[in-house]
């Protein structure tokens, strides 16, 4: 099959399915038929200049979703547009904005994108359409890279201001008096990539929007909000929570698509006793290589930075002996510098780059055109992300192929053996909690700085007076004689808050190999603990670097290029302390609770693992300070601990905890990495055996409360998961890897869950 001749996607797929070793692993093959386009005419009210502009770009009618969206916006209603990747959603907001400017050139619009790069793409696209329409529109990006002299011009004359939530938060809203023309004439606010505003970031952004709308009201404008989202389970709810308005859902997708094949692939079971399966990374390479050799543009998604680098190395080496396309396969992930990324995106659009191996960084609406094949090495963790990644393959005409290669992890296994979960199940719901107190208080401060609060004025869900009274005690604000709350501190509150708490501070990675050391990337603090600790092997563009020194205080990692046969993997020790109980209730065999906890994460040791075989070559200690996380958690205690041997109880707690974590992530439809697990044989707080599931972001985003409510489902589901597993005595797919082979973890975990009220009837059957 090592053929380097151009071939059609169908031919490559046929070859692949004709190869027994590969075909055996296909557990589901779904063919999604081609869909014709559904068109609607351009609305009569559309300005003739814009019609001309569209015509010059070959557009004389709209897709149905585009027509629906612009009609609603025209009528002054907020909308949330939900359509798949690359379905022409830009027009959904570009047309209303152009129309508003055609009607009245003093109109202004604000475009929000989650990242700088996306904003720059969009401003270019919008500008082209405006020029084609012969409209003079001043559309500019306003972000950290905007030079100072241009900034003041954008403030006074920018009709379309393209920015990101961070910039809005720290640079625009606190200086709103310099932006009064924008706030007075704001007609349209565009929130693109709505689905990215979840978790703690979403909670922050919801509050930034509250502040924005509050200032609009002050300046007398009532902008319409257009949200655009990839497919998620609760777009209307998300948009409503984020914007505080009640948007109209537009999801009548009219964009055409060619025939698409979706293959769900399971790596072979290597050892039934341990449940060990072949590597998803290796198998993904085998599925991707024939497409590359046939000259078909292919994207391969890895779940982590390390996975991306391993995939890239593997694919490049396999292509090495063949002539040609090796250098046309590139890596793409968070640590790469922006210029490097732009070049890869361009290369994908013009076909110069044949293949790309990426993390979820390419999930977002970065414009890379449409590719022939997508191979996912591992379930991306959510249905929405899966469809985003699969959506990268799919031309408007012709056949495309997407392959999801499962890993051995429990959620992957669940998804791959329940295709209906992906194909029919509604994608997960994006959760955010704008009333997360850490977040809310920070933004009430910033809002008071921007404009005093009237007595009884609402901010978000209710009057802000209680919060302001609290802030008054802290000395940040004061209530004056007129009853209004005024900012009364010398500080500049917005500067103290980062919207992306997880990436508040980054560690810069400096390559000291060349004469002039250069920055090759950066990682956030949490990731730095395990990726660039001293003596780690850090992978970048499939090159290996040894971390010589990590200057934690200066946030700098000094690395040197090496060529070794191993990589490193670090472990974390996590400790947890309950701070407060919000709710507590008796449950069968114990208690269920939810409340606030303090989680401390410490990187402990790292292992040197040999490539391919994963053979352990040695280990070392990591000396880094602990990182603390105050968040919300759901936990349960076991009251009747008699009759358990300590080591058995420990194994049972861990085993049941793993199963609970898996079931919780499926029940709540969240990425399992969003939930942390801690088990304690004797919790210092309760003096009882305890299992904690915590929300992995500061302050939490509301997962704990929902788990508390679903306690019975969790216990029942965890027991079912363990019982239905094919393994003997526990495996990574149910109770986690077997640490003490002499213990029957499956039996112990089931015994514990039964004690907690799990029904026994199925076990008997």
């Amino acid at each position, binding site marked *: 099959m090592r053929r380097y001749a151009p071939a059609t996607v169908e031919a490559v797929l046929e070859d692949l399915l004709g190869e027994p070793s590969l075909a055996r692993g296909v557990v589901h093959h779904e063919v999604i038929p081609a869909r014709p386009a559904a068109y609607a005419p351009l609305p009569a009210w559309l300005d003739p200049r814009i019609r001309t502009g569209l015509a010059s770009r070959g557009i004389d009618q709209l897709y149905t979703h585009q027509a629906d969206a612009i009609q609603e916006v025209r009528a002054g209603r907020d909308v949330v547009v939900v359509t798949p990747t690359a379905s022409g959603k830009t027009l959904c907001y570009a047309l209303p904005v152009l129309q508003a400017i055609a009607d009245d050139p003093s109109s202004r619009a604000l475009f929000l994108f989650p990242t700088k790069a996306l904003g720059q793409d969009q401003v270019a696209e919008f500008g082209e359409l405006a020029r084609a329409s012969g409209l003079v529109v001043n559309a500019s990006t306003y972000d950290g890279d905007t030079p100072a002299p241009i900034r003041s011009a954008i403030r006074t004359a920018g009709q379309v201001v393209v920015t990101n939530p961070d910039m809005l938060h720290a640079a625009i809203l*606190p*200086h*709103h*008096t*310099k932006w*009064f023309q924008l706030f007075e004439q704001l007609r349209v606010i565009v929130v693109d990539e709505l689905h990215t505003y979840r978790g703690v970031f979403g909670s922050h952004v919801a509050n930034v929007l509250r502040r924005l709308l509050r200032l609009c009201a*002050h*300046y007398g404008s009532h902008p319409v909000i257009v949200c655009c989202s990839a497919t998620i389970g609760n777009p209307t709810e998300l948009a409503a929570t984020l914007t505080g308005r009640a948007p109209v859902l537009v999801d009548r997708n009219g964009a055409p698509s060619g025939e698409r094949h979706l293959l769900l692939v399971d790596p072979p079971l290597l050892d039934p006793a341990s449940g060990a399966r072949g590597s998803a990374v290796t198998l993904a390479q085998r599925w991707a290589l024939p497409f590359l050799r046939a000259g078909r543009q292919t994207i391969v998604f890895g779940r982590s930075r390390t996975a991306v680098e391993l995939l890239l190395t593997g694919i490049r080496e396999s292509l090495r002996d063949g002539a040609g396309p090796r250098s046309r396969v590139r890596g793409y992930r968070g640590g790469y510098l922006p210029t490097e990324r732009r070049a890869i995106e361009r290369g994908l659009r013009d076909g110069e780059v044949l293949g790309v191996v990426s993390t979820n960084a390419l999930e977002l609406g970065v414009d890379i055109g449409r590719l022939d094949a997508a191979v996912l090495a591992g379930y991306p963790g959510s249905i929405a992300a899966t469809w985003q990644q699969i959506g990268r393959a799919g031309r408007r005409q012709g056949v495309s192929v997407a392959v999801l290669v499962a890993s051995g992890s429990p959620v992957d296994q669940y998804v791959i053996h329940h295709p209906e979960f992906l194909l029919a199940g509604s994608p997960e719901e994006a959760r955010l909690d704008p*009333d997360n*107190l850490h977040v809310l*208080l920070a933004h009430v401060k910033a809002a*008071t*700085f*921007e*404009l*005093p609060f009237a007595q009884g004025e609402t901010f978000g*869900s*209710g009057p802000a007076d*209680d*919060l302001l*009274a*609290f802030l*008054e*005690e*802290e*000395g940040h604000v*004061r*209530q*004056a*004689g*007129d009853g*209004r709350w*005024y*900012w*009364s*501190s*010398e*500080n*500049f*509150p917005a500067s103290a808050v980062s919207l992306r708490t997880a990436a508040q501070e980054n560690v810069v990675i400096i390559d000291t190999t060349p004469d002039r050391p250069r920055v090759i990337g950066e990682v956030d603090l949490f990731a730095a603990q395990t990726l660039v600790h001293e003596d780690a092997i850090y992978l970048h563009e499939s090159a290996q670097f040894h971390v010589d020194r990590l200057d934690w205080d200066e946030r700098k990692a000094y690395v040197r290029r090496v060529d070794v046969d191993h990589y490193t993997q670090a472990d974390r020790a996590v400790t947890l302390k309950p*701070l*407060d109980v*919000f709710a507590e209730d008796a449950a069968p065999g114990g208690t269920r609770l939810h*409340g*606030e906890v303090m989680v401390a994460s410490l990187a402990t040791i790292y292992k040197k693992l040999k490539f391919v075989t994963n053979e352990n070559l040695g280990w070392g200690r990591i000396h880094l300070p602990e990182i603390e996380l105050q968040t919300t958690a759901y936990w349960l205690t076991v009251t009747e601990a008699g009759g358990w041997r300590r080591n058995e109880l420990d194994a049972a707690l861990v085993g049941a905890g793993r199963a609970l974590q898996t079931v919780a992530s499926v029940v709540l439809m969240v990425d399992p990495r969003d939930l942390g697990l801690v088990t304690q044989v004797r919790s210092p707080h309760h003096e009882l055996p305890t299992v904690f599931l915590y929300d992995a972001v500061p302050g939490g985003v509301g997962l704990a409360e929902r788990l508390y409510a679903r306690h019975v489902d969790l216990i029942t589901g965890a027991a079912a998961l363990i019982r239905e597993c094919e393994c003997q005595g526990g495996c990574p797919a149910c109770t986690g890897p077997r640490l003490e082979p002499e213990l029957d973890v499956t039996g112990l975990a089931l015994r514990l869950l039964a004690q907690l009220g799990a029904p026994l009837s199925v076990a008997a059957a």
Partner: protein
Amino acid sequence: MLARRLATFRREDTAAARPSGHVAQRSTAGNGRHRGTELANRLAAALDAEVVVTPQGSIVRIEAAARALPLDREALAHLPGQPPANVPLVCLDTETTGLATAAGTVAFLVGLGWWEDSRFRQVQLLLPDQPDEPALLDLLASMIPSHAWLVTYNGRGFDWPLLVARFRMARRDAPPHAGHLDLLATVRRLFRHRMADARLRTAEEALLGIARVDDVEGWEIPGRYLSFLRGGDPQPLVPVVQHNDRDVRSLACLLAHLADELGDHDRRRLAPDGDLLGLARTFQREGRLDEALQCLDMAVQRPLRPAASLRAAATPRPGATLGSAGAITSRPAVVPRPAVVPSAWLVDRTDDIRVAIAQRSQARLARLTRDQLARERARLLRRLGRRDEARLAWHALAGSSGPLAAVAYVELAKILEHVERDFPAALDAVTAADSLVAGSASVDAPLPGLHADLRRRRERLVRRAAGDTGRVPASLETPGRGPHAPAHALLNG
């Protein structure tokens, strides 16, 4: 649920260790709440000021007795960048609750000053409480005539944008005015060379010869006001009001100083070389080349004297006698400020050594300034098209063997090479510059890029000289010739 979470948060917050001082500073709710008039009355009592009650709110208005402070407006108007003689001037300075010119920073005290004939009148508007701000903005707007010029210190970058933001917060336009003179820019251009920094207080000391006593530090000001708002004592605001009063008065004194010291040709005779250099450059920026040349001519024609002796000869200026008793002391203006000389490392030396070093540095500095004047003059002559005079000026500078002689040789080399096409002579000039640069590696004059420039010139000239005449230039045979010889040769030839 929100209330519940807030309660939890509050508990955690109190449980967390915090410095006891911070807790003590917390005011309980209600403690800081007063009717605006009550705060205004307390302030007025502490400051011996009046309360102006308007429908928009109450304002504390402080007016000191007007004082004689003659300002020669005609002389001032002759200076570059200064306001015309016939427009009203409004000196303005604010005290604020923070340093960011963002929406949450309030200008709680606005000091204004203007002339009524030869008397300088000052009024300060103090905000007794945040809700009264519209009243302050109203009063302020009524006190700035639309044909007036504002006079500030760093007001272009800070005070005025902040006030514009305050008007914008109230959804109204800031009062129009005809011009804005930011004295920070003027001071930087004319006097920065003899000051350690360009802060207003430094300018007062260096130019007006006055030093403040018991002045409140800028960083303390926001805190004093904010703690007053939270129910604190008005007394700590008294020095803040005095501070602002002096800032406004200093603006007036600086204007008078400018007019008196530099306002016309005769007054400039006593000005230090550096001031004249700055003045000449400022004239040039406005295209007033003849006046620039006058300044330079005057400076280079007078004998070289240390700046200090010039200043000693100056008549006492009004600024030095303006201090209110006890608050501002007058001191003789003879003390030179060797501002450009790094002095921190001198602290441990004995006074004798300090003085000796300071004097030597002073002398070197004076020499450099004189050379800069000469260079500026030669460039200006060239710009005016007076080529022969320019060439003579470069000759003079080259022959002086001062810090910038090498630069003059390069200029001569340019003229010789490109205008007169006398390549051997040009090469001689380059050689002379070379040896000066080599011998003065440690000289104060910063001559960046000169080395490389000379090398390129030399290579080109050697090529052209060989091509043109076929003879090897004398300077290549005897590279050890002193720097003066070519100058003489050029002068004679």
